[in-house]
């Protein structure tokens, strides 16, 4: 009789993620699924609002990457009024975005992934956390805190707010960079680049030491999607979307505004979150991943020297082919952190960055706008349709966690097949299932915060629904 192992949160508010591991009659894993909570509520919430309000409304989706939504919304609003922002406005928006990337990536690496890598997946859970890391390696933990603060300081310098910035508007930005802010950011850049390099060294050392493990842990073929500049180098703020297959062959390169010609969204009855896929290859052949792993796989290089050297080493991991191991996300994440810091330096050197040419007015309403950028977790698409007055009649958001929806389930399945033995729910299996999901850095819980933790309930069920065993973590 088929059995199902379920890992689900007990509380309703933090996450709504549930993992089901379905066992066959022989006790082996048949398949696994990650169930994610409904996201469409926010899209409904936005309908009826004016398009120009969206840069202020959408950051409320998330307390971790509000800047990504803020800027994607502003880009969609630019398109609705038919405006291309000035070079200065684009530079300043990208600068803010780099701050977002630095704070988000460093938080994930040093606080969430770091304890796994530095203390071990099977370390005592009471110690396998950021506090345990601080106790054992305080200098490493401090680097993470300083990187996160640095990223937040860039956001605050431009947006006047640490969390919900008021900066990008339809047609540009509403304030210039001050000399004081520029000099403050510059002052700390060198130290933060060293911090990022220390993170890269940690990730590489771990991956080198555990290469066989990393190469097989949640490793599977799929496509990779991300944004590239005109010359094919990594671009986190603007450019074309490039999709490659599992062998590294380029499948498409297209304007993000045309995403509906290339990306479909599959609906499954066991989860509210849709599954984006490449239309021409259909479902499930067209599934792909986004985020740091995907971006380093699909780009042709990185336009900053230190990060490019890391990318060159990345290329050697799998002989120039895409790297498939999910744990390589961690290395890629820190390479992107380094890139974001170097790119910050480049932006601050641009003579136009201090200009007051910030805004292009327009009274046009084109009635549709698509905004796209590479959020820390992956490609983020905001697609708005309006009535002739600019009131939103349709809002479609494809978030990185959605793009990675299939990949996270597949990762769980790969890990479960390796670690689930019959009906036993082991700590080792749970640790690794979590690590496989966590490596994608899903944003499951950021819309709402409430006092409490997200415990996981692991339930072993027979095919008829009878509970065989239940384990609660957290």
């Amino acid at each position, binding site marked *: 009789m088929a059995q199902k192992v379920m890992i689900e949160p007990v509380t309703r508010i*933090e996450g709504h993620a549930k993992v089901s591991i379905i066992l066959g009659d022989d006790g082996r894993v048949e398949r696994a699924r990650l169930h994610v909570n409904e996201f469409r509520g926010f899209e409904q919430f936005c309908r009826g609002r004016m398009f120009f309000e969206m840069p202020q409304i959408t950051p*409320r989706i998330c307390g971790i990457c509000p800047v990504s939504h803020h800027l994607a919304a502003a880009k969609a609003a630019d398109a609705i009024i038919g405006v291309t922002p000035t070079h200065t406005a684009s530079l300043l928006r990208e600068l803010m975005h780099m701050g977002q990337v630095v704070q988000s990536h460093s938080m994930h690496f040093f606080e969430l992934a770091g304890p796994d890598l530095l203390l071990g997946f099977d370390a005592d859970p*009471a110690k396998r956390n950021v506090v345990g890391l601080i106790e054992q390696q305080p200098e490493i933990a401090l680097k993470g*805190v300083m990187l996160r603060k640095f990223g937040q300081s860039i956001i605050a310098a431009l947006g006047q707010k640490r969390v919900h910035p008021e900066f990008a508007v339809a047609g540009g930005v509403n304030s210039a960079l001050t000399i004081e802010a520029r000099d403050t950011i510059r002052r700390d850049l060198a130290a933060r680049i060293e911090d990022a390099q220390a993170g890269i060294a940690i990730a590489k050392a771990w991956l080198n030491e555990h290469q066989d493990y990393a190469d097989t842990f949640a490793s599977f073929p799929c496509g990779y999607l991300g944004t590239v500049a005109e010359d094919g180098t990594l671009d986190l703020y603007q450019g074309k979307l490039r999709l490659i297959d599992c062998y590294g062959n380029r499948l498409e390169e297209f304007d993000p505004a045309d995403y509906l010609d290339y990306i479909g969204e599959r609906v499954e009855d066991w989860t509210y979150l849709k599954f984006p896929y490449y239309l021409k290859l259909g479902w499930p052949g067209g599934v792909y991943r986004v985020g740091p792993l995907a971006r380093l796989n699909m780009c042709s290089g990185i336009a900053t020297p230190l990060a490019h050297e890391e990318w060159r080493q990345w290329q050697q991991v799998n002989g120039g082919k895409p790297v498939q191991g999910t744990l390589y996300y961690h290395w890629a994440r820190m390479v992107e952190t380094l890139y974001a810091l170097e790119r910050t330096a480049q932006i601050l050197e641009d003579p136009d960055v201090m200009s007051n040419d910030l805004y292009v007015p327009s009274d046009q309403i084109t009635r549709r706008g698509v905004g796209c950028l590479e959020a820390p977790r992956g490609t983020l698409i905001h697609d708005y349709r309006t009535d002739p007055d600019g009131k939103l009649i349709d809002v479609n958001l494809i978030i990185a966690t959605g793009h990675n929806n299939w990949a996270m389930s597949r990762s769980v399945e790969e890990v479960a097949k390796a670690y689930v033995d019959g009906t036993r729910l082991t700590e080792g299996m749970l640790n690794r299932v979590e690590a496989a999901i966590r490596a994608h850095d899903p944003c499951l819980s950021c819309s709402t915060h409430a006092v409490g933790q997200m415990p996981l309930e692991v339930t072993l069920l027979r095919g008829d629904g009878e509970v065989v065993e239940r384990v609660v973590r957290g």
Partner: protein
Amino acid sequence: MVRWSNGWCVAEGRALVLGLGNLSRQDDGFGWYAVNRVRALLGQPPLDDTDDGMDRLGQVVDTAFLPQVSSDLADLVAQYERLVLVDARIGGEMQVSWFAVEPLAQDQPRLLTHDMLPAELLAVSRALYGHAPRTYVVTVPGLSFDFGMGLSNEMATLVDAAGRLCLLLARGKLPA
């Protein structure tokens, strides 16, 4: 000013009342309302719905509103003698509750969430900066966390009591 053995300075008597939550998710925005009640009691203008208050710190009792606790707050909270966190909670009796928090590591690692528990923040603060403020959490159970603005009627009636309790705790007076 109190100077700790590691050189870190803490202004004696200073407190931070930090509301947590998301104003766009109904009762999850309770912390913002409570913080603004504290500000009213202190004779200060309210934070507007886009102002986190972080640029206005420096009073004896400071107030701010953020979506969640995160590690980069460690050096901020280490500057205070007392910290009062006010937030919605899930379930429980419909009344204002409070409890003290000690700096402790979680007994389980964070699994998939990006926020940090108060006890964990305090542990980070103490480990990195040598001091963690005496900390209290004030909570009220939320009834609706769906997208939307405004508190449920039941929760709205508790804003005043929560604000007064926050201020009491911020001033170092424990309720009877």
